[in-house]
């Protein structure tokens, strides 16, 4: 119970953390110190609560009546939302420390206070979303969360791109919320209450309708393809620590929603799991293909979030199939893999966004084709970026590998034991993951190479400076936690096991984890890897042969320039061409004419297929024809009263 009280206290502190700063002048830094202090204190308090809850492993629930006609204030901690709470308190803690340097009040007097206010509110309401045990409370928290994210992401609203990205986000999130309203109304119809308590039985039709509404409503927030339209723009245009919080944590609220709804009711149909798995495969492959095509550092990271959400959906789909078939091992590996990947992705994606922020801070552009050679100027940023990149490519010995190992193990076990309808889906998931892996490597080698390696491509790169400790320390903590989870994953097993038991409604998972994924061995292999590398590196250091330095081999060309380096877009070009059936890259290729041709330029961009070729055209057509309806909007009160009268008369006639 103490743990729940601590978490509620933490939420209250986080939500109000930005308010005291409003009392101070826009140029005073004192207000920002108070904001950061409150967020740090709130997050630490919350982490204490989470730690107690993990230790006690008991469910805590708190219920009180409130003045609203529906629902009640009902919150609780269980083993399912614990994993999400860890992320919700860790990322704002580090993000607010990072913001002290990155978004200093004295440098951003016009919007610093606003950003601090909504950053805290976003963090606090996310925690409220995951602990809410009542659908009305859930929706209230959900809506404040969505709006705080809107205001936090659009602080630079003097910029047209930011405003447009904000609008797209606002529309998308509200379509999602609309589905959630429908879902909770249906939930109330089926169960007779707004409370989110598990029900033992539900009709197949109602269950499926609830599942579809959850998939669409929460899918908008999670950013699964093709509901991801708001995601790249909003992530790219927000301040980096807000992008980290949105991508690392807020997307997971969608995943949490799907997990929670499938926990509340029995899985009545086989296709729930198959659909989620296929959706995951599409998001995964298309997400990473789009990421390879981007040249904006933050858009690359945003699309890679879609890919990771896809991986989580594959795992969750497997767990749903396991629930339907009553297979404890699939559930364990699927749900465990999904939860672990939620945590891991939160850590390494926030790390990469912090890194991206540091780079943008240093070179004042987001275009990776204008960067290069930053490794020498920002060695620590580069080190952390490489750790994040290795983790996100799911390479051993970092944490991404562990969660993907869970998911692979689950899919392979399914293939091994199953002969029926589930088999093709499991095989599809396994091969899709095997395709996503090398594509992620392509994407992040491109990103790391274009930004940090080679020679500077722009004057700004020459003057880039390593960020101060305020930004480096949060990054180092995240990088270290990626390494620790990657090398010693065993300590998380109990948390995952408890979550699985709760979600699947089984009292004991009889199977032992280490028989599927021998996590203790990964520590040994990681140690062998580290020490062998260390040994060979030392040998090379002590090598007696002479070492000398010259310029890179230029094949005898006398005057190479930095512009001749392979850029990020040239690196991704062959893959973009191979995936052009999804990406539809737009090339502007001018012909060379005449004997003395003029200077021409070539442009190739990968736009978002869904947003730019489907959503915007539909909205444009709507914009052209819907103004006819404006006839009714006369701006005269008596006309509106007349409408009301007419409608009431019609309703009376219809006898409703």
């Amino acid at each position, binding site marked *: 119970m103490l743990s729940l009280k601590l978490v509620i206290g933490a939420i209250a502190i986080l939500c109000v953390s930005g308010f005291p700063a409003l009392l101070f002048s826009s140029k005073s830094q004192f207000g920002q110190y108070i904001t950061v202090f409150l967020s740090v204190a709130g997050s630490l308090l919350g982490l204490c609560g989470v730690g107690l809850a993990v230790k006690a492993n008991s469910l805590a629930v708190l219920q009180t009546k409130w003045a609203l006609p529906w629902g009640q204030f009902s919150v609780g901690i269980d083993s399912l939302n614990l994993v999400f709470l860890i992320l919700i308190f860790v990322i704002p803690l580090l993000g607010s420390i990072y913001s002290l340097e990155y978004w200093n009040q004295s440098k951003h007097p016009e919007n610093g206070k606003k950003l601090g206010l909504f950053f805290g509110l976003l963090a606090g309401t996310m925690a409220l979303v995951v602990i809410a045990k009542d659908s009305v409370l859930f929706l209230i928290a959900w809506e404040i969360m969505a709006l705080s994210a809107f205001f936090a992401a659009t602080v630079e609203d003097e910029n047209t791109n930011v405003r447009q990205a904000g609008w797209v986000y606002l529309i998308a999130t509200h379509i999602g919320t609309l589905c959630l309203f429908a879902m909770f109304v249906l939930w109330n119809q089926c169960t007779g209450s707004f409370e989110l308590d598990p029900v033992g039985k539900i009709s197949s039709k109602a269950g499926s309708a609830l599942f579809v509404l959850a998939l669409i409503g929460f899918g908008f927030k999670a950013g699964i393809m093709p509901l991801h339209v708001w995601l790249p723009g909003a992530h790219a245009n927000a301040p980096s620590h807000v992008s980290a919080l949105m991508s690392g944590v807020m997307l997971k609220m969608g995943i949490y929603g799907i997990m929670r709804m499938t926990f509340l009711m029995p899985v009545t149909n086989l296709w729930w799991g198959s659909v989620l798995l296929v959706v995951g495969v599409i998001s995964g492959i298309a997400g990473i293909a789009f990421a390879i095509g981007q040249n904006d550092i933050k858009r690359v990271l945003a699309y890679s979030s879609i890919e990771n959400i896809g991986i989580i959906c594959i795992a969750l789909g497997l767990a749903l199939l396991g629930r339907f078939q009553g297979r404890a091992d699939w559930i364990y590996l699927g749900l465990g893999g999904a939860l672990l990947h939620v945590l891991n992705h939160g850590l390494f994606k926030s790390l990469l966004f912090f890194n991206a922020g540091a780079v943008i801070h240093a070179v004042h552009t987001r275009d990776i084709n204008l960067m290069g050679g930053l490794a020498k100027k920002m060695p620590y940023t580069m080190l952390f970026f490489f750790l994040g990149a*290795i983790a996100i490519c799911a390479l051993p010995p970092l944490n991404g590998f562990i969660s993907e190992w869970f998911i692979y193990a689950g899919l392979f076990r399914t293939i091994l034991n199953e002969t029926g309808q589930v088999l093709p889906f499991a095989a599809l998931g396994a091969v899709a993951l095997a395709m996503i*892996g090398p594509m992620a490597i392509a994407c992040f080698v491109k990103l790391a190479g*274009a930004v940090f390696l080679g020679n500077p491509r722009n004057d700004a790169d020459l003057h880039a400076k390593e960020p101060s400790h305020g930004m480096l320390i949060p990054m180092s903590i995240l990088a270290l936690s990626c390494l620790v989870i990657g090398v010693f994953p065993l300590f998380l097993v109990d948390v995952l096991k408890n979550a699985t038991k709760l979600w699947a409604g089984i009292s004991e998972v009889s199977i032992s984890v280490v028989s599927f994924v021998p996590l203790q061995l990964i520590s040994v292999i990681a140690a062998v890897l580290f020490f062998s590398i260390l040994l*060979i590196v030392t040998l*090379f250091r002590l090598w007696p042969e002479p070492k000398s330095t010259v310029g890179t081999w230029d094949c005898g060309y006398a005057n190479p320039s930095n512009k001749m*380096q392979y850029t990020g877009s040239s690196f991704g070009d062959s893959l973009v061409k191979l995936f052009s059936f999804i990406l539809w890259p737009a090339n502007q290729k001018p012909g060379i004419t005449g004997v003395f041709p003029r200077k021409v330029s070539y442009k190739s961009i990968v736009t978002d297929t869904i947003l730019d070729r489907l959503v915007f055209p539909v909205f444009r057509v709507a914009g052209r024809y819907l103004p006819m309806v404006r006839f009714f909007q006369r701006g005269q009160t008596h006309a509106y009263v007349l409408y009301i009268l007419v409608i009431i008369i019609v309703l009376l006639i219809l006898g409703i």
Partner: protein
Amino acid sequence: MVTNVIHVLLLLLMPPLLLGIINKTKAWFGGRVGAPFLQPYYDILKLLRKGMVFSTTTTWIFRIGPIVTLVALLIAGLLVPMGRFDAPVYFTGDLILFAYLFGLSRFFTTAAALDTGSSFEGMGSAREVTFACFSEPALFFAFLVLVKISGSLSLTPMLHGPANGFSVAIAAPVVLIAIGLFVVMLAESCRIPVDDPNTHLELTMIHEVMVLDHSGPLFGVISYTAAVKLFVLSTVLLHIIMPFEFLQDWANWLIYIFGVMGVSVLIGIVESIMARLQMRHVPYLLISALLFCAFGFILLIR
């Protein structure tokens, strides 16, 4: 214990010999005497005694890249059983670790290439990461077939599967994945028709062009690593194209060693009678390998 010692010794010592055999085969086809079988060993030893030249552009990634690649591939080599003998390390799910150790080596090779800032090396690493996107799913389809045949999730029993339970029902899938895996092996170890290790025109290469700037002992490490990769992949392939065993241990070791050499002869023959494909056609070759493996899987589960 003895088995493990022999495994480690073969893994460490035998790989360069394969390159020697390939070159000898190619020389024989060309009507030349060719370099001695042990030439790759001499080359590597000579490189280890040379000085190193570093580009001023490079950072620690350039220096650590070949070393991480070597260590990752050697650990992967410990997971693959040789012939009828169990691998020194095997556990449930090691096939994933095997594939991702290859991924780790690819990450560092390509990053080290980009570290030089040379457009040639950028080109090479772009090709490497592109082609991996098709060869890796093919490898996983082949693994799925082996998982289904052997009923196990660990490389050692999986690769022993075709020999232990050989039947007519698994013959067709095994043949299909053998073809697919052979192409994957050619692509991963950068042989003709995907890549030409002999050419020195930078525009047409993949692996060689990524390591243009490495020199001396580091280049020796890279040459050795390439041989290790070929050796490990040949070992995997051998289980599928030669699914039988003898009763005596020594005979099994002999047949394994000669089998791996035979795979090298096969590669030498392919290199002698085929030309390198155009770069833009390589993905189609790899996609056909993927399809072979996928059809193998479908045949098995039908």
